[in-house]
């Protein structure tokens, strides 16, 4: 058999640069293109400067800070309670998880026991938030690679979850639902039934999306083995959450360092095998299913009782005491005017948020304002690695990859 002469099939001189195996490494052949800071596919204000050879990104550098608003500095001149609304604006796609993360850190610092009912409601609302966060991530990611219908399927059910959250705390996006020591209010009577009904719809919505994409040739070609990140590299970059698990590391704080009775709930931690875009999208679909399991179990176990601790250091007294006796009135006055004052010290506490490990380091000097707060946003680590992953891929892959690591500029830039 005659060997095929590739040279005659594909003369080096006439082939396009993308197909040519011999590349001249000259800077003058490259085109510099800014992806962002205001670009529909960034879903926020991010910037990546890409050096292009044809359509291939040969080098990239990123810039963040466009949404930096000084969250940490602002907290230093507000009381601990006043910081809670600021945390809504970190990952605004799953605000309650930030509320929970922050309050849990302060509660750990002050050794406050949150009532059981409040813990279960925190779990239920957190998992609802995880579901809508994943729906937004997967839905928006699929839009970025041209699959618009999935966006409607996932956002339809997200809307129904938001209706529940709106009934629950009056706000859709910026919920400020938790308080230090519990919750702002109890759930409404029909909450359980409505959540159960919406879970059914979520299952259907996720199934509809999966039906459209699982065997879709275009989707598979765009995501399989594209923008792979190895286990070792992901760990070195401090990746956590679904993006790390997509690379094959079974690490979930709900299992590794259980809090809020997560050790008693039956659920699995889905793990990917390749660490490509496909894994990062599909792991979210699987996690939605696990979150549904957790919510169903938590609703079944939801105990009766108060949703706010009676610890006088953090909880306002009941209204009849505020108006009925002097101790109640003074207690109310002290908490409003003098705030919550943890003992001097430093705490680090982390929860498994939708994007990964959301950590708060809080330094207290004993006054009503936090002396220093440092938030560890999970997607900060994801985006730190972004430029290294997209090098060697095409521009279109960079867009697809950006969606899969779910960058939320609110928590990235703080």
């Amino acid at each position, binding site marked *: 058999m005659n060997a095929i002469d590739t040279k005659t099939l594909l003369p080096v001189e006439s082939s396009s640069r993308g197909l040519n195996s011999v590349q001249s490494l000259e800077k003058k052949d490259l085109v510099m293109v800014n992806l962002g800071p205001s670009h529909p596919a960034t879903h926020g204000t991010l910037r990546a400067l890409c050096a292009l050879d044809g359509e291939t990104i*040969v080098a990239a*550098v990123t810039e*963040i800070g466009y949404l930096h608003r000084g969250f940490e500095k602002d907290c230093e001149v507000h009381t601990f309670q006043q910081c809670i609304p600021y945390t809504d604006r970190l990952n605004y796609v799953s605000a309650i998880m930030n509320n929970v993360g922050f309050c849990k850190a302060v509660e750990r*610092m002050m050794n406050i026991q949150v009532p059981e009912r409040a813990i279960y409601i925190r779990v239920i609302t957190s998992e609802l938030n995880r579901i809508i966060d994943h729906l937004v991530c997967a839905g928006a990611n699929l839009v970025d690679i041209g699959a618009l219908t999935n966006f409607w399927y996932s956002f339809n059910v997200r809307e129904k979850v938001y209706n529940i959250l709106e009934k629950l705390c009056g706000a859709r996006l910026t919920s400020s639902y938790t308080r230090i020591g519990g919750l702002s209010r109890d759930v409404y009577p029909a909450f359980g039934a409505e959540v159960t009904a919406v879970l059914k719809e979520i299952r259907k919505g996720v199934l509809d999306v999966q039906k459209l994409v699982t065997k879709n040739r275009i989707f598979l070609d765009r995501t399989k083995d594209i923008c792979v990140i190895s286990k070792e590299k992901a760990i070195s970059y*401090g990746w956590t959450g679904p993006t790390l698990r997509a690379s094959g590391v079974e690490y979930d704080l709900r299992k590794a360092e259980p809090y809020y009775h997560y050790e008693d709930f039956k659920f699995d931690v889905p793990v990917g095998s390749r660490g490509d875009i496909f894994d990062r999208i599909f792991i979210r679909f699987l996690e939605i299913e696990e979150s549904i399991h957790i919510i169903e179990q938590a609703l079944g176990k939801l105990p009766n009782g108060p949703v706010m601790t009676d610890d006088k250091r953090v909880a306002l007294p009941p209204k009849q005491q505020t108006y009925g006796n002097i101790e109640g009135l003074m207690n109310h006055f002290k908490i409003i005017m003098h705030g919550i004052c943890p003992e001097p010290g430093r705490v680090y506490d*982390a929860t498994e948020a939708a994007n990964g490990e959301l950590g708060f380091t809080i330094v207290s*000097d004993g006054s009503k304002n936090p002396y*220093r707060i440092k938030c*560890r946003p999970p997607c900060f680590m994801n985006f730190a690695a972004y430029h290294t992953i997209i090098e060697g891929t095409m521009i279109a892959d960079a867009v697809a990859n950006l969606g899969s690591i779910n960058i939320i500029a609110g928590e990235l830039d703080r």
Partner: protein
Amino acid sequence: MEFSALLEKLKEKTPQAILGSADRFGALEVQVDRAQLAGMVKILRDDPEFQFDMLVDIVSVDYSAFSGWTGERFGVIYHLKSLGHGHRIQLSLTAPEDGPVVPSLTTLYANADWLEREAFDQMGIRFSGHPNLKRLLNHHEFVGHPLRKDYPITRRQALSMNESLMDEMEVRLKEKGYV
């Protein structure tokens, strides 16, 4: 590894670098000699008994307004996590007001690059050995370090030009072999 066992092991392996230890609400904090940080972290990362393979966070603190504080002005806290063993550790060190310089961990952890840039940007801590210590969250024309206690929260700055990023790009292209 248990809290106390971890501390004992650590004292065995790197006795000279440890200045003290504390219990931070159930988490182990070890105060570290600033000059020996990088060497100690390398042991923590590579020794199979520790295996602290993830740098979780770097936190910088300005203690100048902290009542009763007598130590050096700045504090830096490193949060490390071992995925294999499941344990955590906090390493803390202090740095003086004039010339707060701390060894960089960029050769040990990939995310130390951005975390150290953030600490430099916000607090003015310098990390010796960092390849590209420039601002990260604030604008490149920004003057001062906003998380320092003497930076007034109401101060505003007029910032005009956007950054070209070509300084970083040139380095990146050179690494890729472009001339």
